């Protein structure tokens, strides 16, 4: 423990309010917790709001955080968007109506179809079939809607076989076509060069891109918490070494390094192996931010009096770390994770986009966006840029969520 009396004088305590009289926000949302009466000396019970007050008094930190978080509209919104996206991860097969690999040169680069919801005033969602012909000048295929070829859409239609949740075999999909070959004639978001359905591919890409981020984050949490924890709790030379490692990784441009490592992943590996290799590469470099957060919090908390109180009570190191410190750092870790996830997703997307990450036949957002590399071509087929939208939306949602979590993580509003 550092001696309190010899702290360097130029680091004033940041938690000290500048003006003792200035209105401080209450420690807890909404109700003033300090009102609780002093039992023995005086009975000071306000007649109103006593129930709400008791609720606050016995609320745990996580409840307080949740109350505070709930007031952060953007963060709530971000959270809901994230949940929606992760439900796509779970139900990708159900939401897709065509196999992501089913290609057909005849249907190359179809534009998205317009969906008509009503036919003669009655609800009957349908699209029109497309006729194609090759433009003799440009040799591009051009498509025309055929109003006579009405393709009706139905919900919970039968389609290709898959296992729901990985173990329930089924062939139901959210939408499908009546009395037509499944996945033959509906292309809600158009097709790519090889005539593969963009909508279905996007569903599968979402699954891959979002899980790769999640797995990478889990790996980095493990690394970050262990390294940051060691560094922050033990201080001294352990801290020194970990700090230098973090600085090192911080001062190197990561993308070239990622690219170098990713390029070393052999072509002949299975999709799964590549998936994990890329995850690990991303995580190896991404753990520093988490470690920094954990370390900073631990260093601050280690100096708190309640840690000393626990030590003096005879609590073991183990208890001090896991009962006192870790729960207090946890909320910060959660916040940091929600801010780290988008970085991981961008990393995967970038690498895959460059052709150094996941490679076809794997489908991820980055892989899909490879189709948009040639911008002159994209100008003619703009729907190939569509996968950019989920990337941006997810990252924004994570940023909002993370920001809200970070604010809520400290109920005392640091």
């Amino acid at each position, binding site marked *: 423990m550092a001696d309190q*009396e010899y702290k360097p004088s130029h680091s004033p305590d940041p938690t000290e309010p500048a003006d003792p009289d200035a209105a401080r926000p209450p420690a807890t949302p909404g109700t003033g917790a300090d009102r609780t009466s002093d039992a023995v000396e005086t009975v000071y019970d306000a007649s109103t709001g006593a129930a709400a007050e008791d609720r606050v008094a016995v609320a745990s930190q996580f409840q307080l955080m949740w109350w505070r978080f709930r007031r952060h509209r953007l963060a709530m919104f971000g959270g809901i968007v994230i949940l929606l996206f992760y439900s796509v991860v779970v139900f990708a097969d159900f939401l897709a109506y065509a196999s992501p690999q089913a290609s057909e040169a005849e249907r190359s680069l179809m534009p998205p179809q317009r969906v008509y919801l009503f036919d003669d005033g009655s609800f009957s969602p349908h699209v029109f079939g497309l006729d194609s012909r090759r433009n003799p000048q440009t040799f591009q295929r051009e498509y025309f809607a055929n109003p006579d070829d009405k393709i009706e859409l139905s919900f919970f239609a039968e389609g290709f076989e898959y296992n729901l949740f990985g173990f329930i075999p089924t062939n139901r999909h959210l939408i499908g076509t009546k009395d037509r070959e499944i996945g033959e004639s509906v292309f809600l978001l158009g097709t790519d060069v090889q005539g593969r359905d963009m909508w279905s591919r996007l569903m599968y890409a979402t699954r891959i891109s979002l899980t790769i981020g999640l797995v990478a984050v889990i790996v980095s949490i493990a690394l970050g918490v262990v390294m940051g924890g060691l560094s922050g709790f033990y201080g001294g030379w352990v801290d020194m070494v970990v700090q230098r490692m973090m600085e090192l990784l911080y001062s190197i441009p990561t993308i070239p390094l990622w690219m170098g490592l990713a390029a070393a992943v052999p072509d002949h590996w299975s999709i799964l192996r590549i998936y994990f290799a890329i995850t690990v590469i991303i995580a190896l470099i991404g753990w520093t931010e988490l470690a920094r957060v954990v370390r900073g919090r631990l260093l601050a908390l280690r100096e708190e009096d309640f840690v000393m109180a626990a030590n003096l009570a*005879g609590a073991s190191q183990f208890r001090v770390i896991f009962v006192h410190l870790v729960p207090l750092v946890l909320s910060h870790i959660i916040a940091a994770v929600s801010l780290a996830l988008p970085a991981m997703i961008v990393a995967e997307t970038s690498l895959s986009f460059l052709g150094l990450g996941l490679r076809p036949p794997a489908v991820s957002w980055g892989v899909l966006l490879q189709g948009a590399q040639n911008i002159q071509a994209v100008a003619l087929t703009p729907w190939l840029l569509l996968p950019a939208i989920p990337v941006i939306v997810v990252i924004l949602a994570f940023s909002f969520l993370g920001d809200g979590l970070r604010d809520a993580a400290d109920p005392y509003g640091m």
Partner: protein
Amino acid sequence: MSANQQITTPPGDTRVIGDTILEVNSLKKFFPIKKGFLRREVGQVRAVDDVTFRVRSGETLSLVGESGCGKTTTSRCILRAMKPSSGEMLFHQKDGRVIDLAKANRSQLRPVRREMQMIFQDPFSSLNPRMTLLDIIGEPLLVNGIGNRREREDRAAELLKLVGLRPEFLSRFPHAFSGGQRQRVGIARALALNPRLIVADEPVSALDVSVQAQILNLLMRLQNEFGLTYLFVAHDLSVVKHISDRVAVMYVGQLVEFAETDALFHHPKHPYTSSLMAAIPAPDPRKRGIRARLKGEVANPAAPPSGCYFHPRCPHAKDICKQESPIFEEVEPGHFVRCHRARELKLTGVPELDNSGAVSASDS
């Protein structure tokens, strides 16, 4: 230091001041100063520099001094929150065994910790915001394997009542309480293991003035009730005067004076103590008047002056004070001073009240 010096407890006080509970002998704590790009040690901050005193069971002994004088470091060393550089700290355990805290290792300290607890200054940082009062107060019991869950709950409730809080509060979290109430919780936690010695580090200085008295009364009541020994670290001399039996004054890591409270406040023998007394603003507008103010600033503990550390600020300094360090000696029974001129100087302290309650004439 004579161990048998009798302390007279004030009227109405039921305490029995007993034998030595803690002997601190030549305690030193130096912090290295590192400089340059190799971080070489170029010097030392002598935070605690040869401190010797005894604490008797049942008494309140206060450590006072200006910030940076080493009082907090001393208390942290005694609690073994930090390891002293050298010296002895002999703790007399309940069963009569004596352990040197300075040399004890973690496992040897464990049983002693139950007899020695601490009350903190900051009522906010001293309670884990994630734990209920039950968890906080019950922790010392839990980690020492005392009682089952039910018994711990009963004990915690009892402790809450003892410090003036409602037992229903056990399920609440610290954020629901004001500073004064939190300080009570901290006191309850310190009492959980039935300690004999409590180190209180500025226990009221973070509290509102109107709440200070509540906590001081509580501390004194608990002391009477349980025969607690307090080592009280504070800078507010009015509070120290109010609560202590004996007072040790520190200056730049050293004890400069040590005596019973009344002797020290009314008849200080060290010029520094006298200056401290003179500096206390009295809450009485009719006793105003410029007193001899202490000039200059506290010496730097990394480079203390020669001779007596206080001589550059001392109005009574002579040549000898610049050259020789005075020794800490007993000039009157129970009154220890580190000053070359302790026996000859007539210093003023806080005026004594005569029977009628008026201030005696010795004060201006």
